[in-house]
């Protein structure tokens, strides 16, 4: 291992790897050495991954990944985080305070490899690309494990259809298995399942639009993804529940036609809920919506809108806000 802590040695080894064309596993004596039986092996979004030993040096890409790792008590194993959507929630802020931020945007493969991770846990499959942190197969060859929360799989047969809290909780357990935090994962699932069960959904059968982004064409929560999962758990009727996708670009006319009782606004640092309110009031069509005229908005943090440890919190937050409408 000490050999690989030195960048020059690392680069040299990488060059040797490419020149000889042999697998990284044999040279680097990484955990994925085929000789040793894999302790954990699974099909992750269509990519076979295996871990002979639990990863000790994890890089988290996107907030949902970092938050789950912290919630499982793995903060000591995180060597870096990147491409976060916003600040950590208060409940995780202390644990996450010491996590080094590798990059505010999506880092390059080399920038991630520099911290010598043995697992990269990404929020989106698309983060694993040649212009992102690297293709999954090429990372695996270097002995770096890759993992995407199963809730975020996009390939046919892997994409949850529709996403449910069971998928989200299964993801907690699966990650717990990989990083040897099975106990913590089980406790987290029990806690969140209990919290979810205790939520009393709004009974008024209110219709809603989950407005995520977009000026000319509103980008809204559709029928299969985290927005629909969260809205239905909160007792809201998603106007676009029939659209077979997680999110969809739609039109203001379709929103106006539905004239929802309330509008869920996603609050992102780069596109705040307040900016969305201004936009809805300024647009001459949406200005006439009942929800806009009566200020019936529900605000959800962007990082909470992707399936993960904050999904149940998002339901709670929505139900709380609904009760005061």
């Amino acid at each position, binding site marked *: 291992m000490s050999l690989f802590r030195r960048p020059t040695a690392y680069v040299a080894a990488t060059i040797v790897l490419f020149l000889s064309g042999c697998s990284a596993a044999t040279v680097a004596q990484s955990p994925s050495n085929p000789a040793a039986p894999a302790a954990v092996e699974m099909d992750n979004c269509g990519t076979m991954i295996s871990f002979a030993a639990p990863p000790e040096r994890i890089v988290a890409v996107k907030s949902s990944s970092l938050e789950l790792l912290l919630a499982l008590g793995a903060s000591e194993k995180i060597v870096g985080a990147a491409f976060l959507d916003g600040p950590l929630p208060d409940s995780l802020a202390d644990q996450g305070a010491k996590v080094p931020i590798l990059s505010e945007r999506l880092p390059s493969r080399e920038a991630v490899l520099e911290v010598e991770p043995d697992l990269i846990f990404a929020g989106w499959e698309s983060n694993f690309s040649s212009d992102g942190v690297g293709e999954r197969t090429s990372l695996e060859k270097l002995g770096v494990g890759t993992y995407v929360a199963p809730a975020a799989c996009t390939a046919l047969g892997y994409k949850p259809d529709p996403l449910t809290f069971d998928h989200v909780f299964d993801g907690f357990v699966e990650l717990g298995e990989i990083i040897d935090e099975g106990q913590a994962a089980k406790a987290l699932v029990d806690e969140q399942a209990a919290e979810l069960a205790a939520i009393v959904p709004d009974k008024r059968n209110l219709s809603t639009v989950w407005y995520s982004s977009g000026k000319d064409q509103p980008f809204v929560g559709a029928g299969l993804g985290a927005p629909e999962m969260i809205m239905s758990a909160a007792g809201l009727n998603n106007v676009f529940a029939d659209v077979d996708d997680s999110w969809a670009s739609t039109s203001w006319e379709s929103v*106006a036609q539905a004239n929802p009782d309330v509008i869920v606004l996603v609050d992102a640092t780069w596109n705040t809920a307040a900016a969305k309110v201004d936009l809805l009031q300024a647009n001459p069509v949406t200005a006439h919506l009942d929800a806009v005229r009566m200020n019936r908005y529900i605000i959800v943090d962007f990082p909470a809108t992707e399936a993960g440890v904050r999904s149940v919190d998002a339901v709670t937050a929505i139900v709380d806000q609904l009760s005061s409408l």
Partner: protein
Amino acid sequence: MKRVVLTSQLSPDEPRASHDRRSSRSVIAACVLAVTALVSLFAAIVTGPADISPMEVMGSLWGHLTGGIPAMSPLRDAIIWEGRVPRVLTAAAVGGGLALCGAVMQALTRNPLADPYLLGLSSGASLGAVIVIVLGVSVALPVAAFMGALLALLFTMTLAKGAGALSQASVVLAGLAVSSAFAALTSLVIFWSATGDSYREILSWLLGSLGGADWSDVAVAMVAVVVCAVPLLGGSRSLDGLLLGDTAAEALGIAVVRTRSMLFACVALLTGALVAVSGSIGFIGLIVPHAVRLVAGGTHRALLPLSFLVGSIFLVWADTLARVMFEPRELPVGIVTSLIGGPIFAVLLLRMSRGRRASGF
């Protein structure tokens, strides 16, 4: 090679009989197209994802045009009067304007592949827009897009002049250089700062969208069309002359340099305004003039107004498709125009090459 597509161009000494036949055919075509355009406008306003009957549309239009209050809920009325009507009118102005610009650019540069975006205008406008969207600069998006387009135009013209007095080749090449540079800057800004899902908005803008069209967009697009169309239409005789080459044009008494600069500036202004309103919508400026030439010949007195009408009708329908094809989802209209435009262009290309062979060119 440059002139192959323009060989149906009417030369000044063409026999009178043929000239009369052509022009009467153009008048009939103009009448038919004008009626088609009006019908298309109404049909497009009646069509949309919301269930609104033609009677309701009539009620809303009648109400607003006569200054009364339409007898329907304010929201339904807003869907029609604040949503569909300005959007369809904007589509008509933008489509017509782009086709007009395309026809003029093809003549000015004597290049059949010329389109309104040739001078780097769309890249300049895109850069301006992306800076506003991504960096949150507090300038209205259309203003920024317009400034970007003007800046690109300025660079192109300066570069072209430096390279050889606004000859058509140097303008095209300068446009290419400026276009690449601005496109790279746009990519840089996106790459540098796209946070979360903010790239979505950029993408939809870059592909061209009329989803945000309101009455102020109608005003911008209409005013730009009117202001620029007057000198462009007035320059149709000069364009006929310029097509014959600079020397021949000068012999015909056309002040080549001045005319070309003025017409370039008009096209740039108009394109800048249109891109500011709708993003860069592809293919209209390229294909519509070619299609019209097949029917009406090449005199610009006929070509320009007919191109305007055909461009309007084309974009109105393309946008209607974008709105309802996958309802309640919506596509950026630029995808639709390119999807339809590509095959049409292929057909035109084949027809033209056949015509060329027959006529010995």
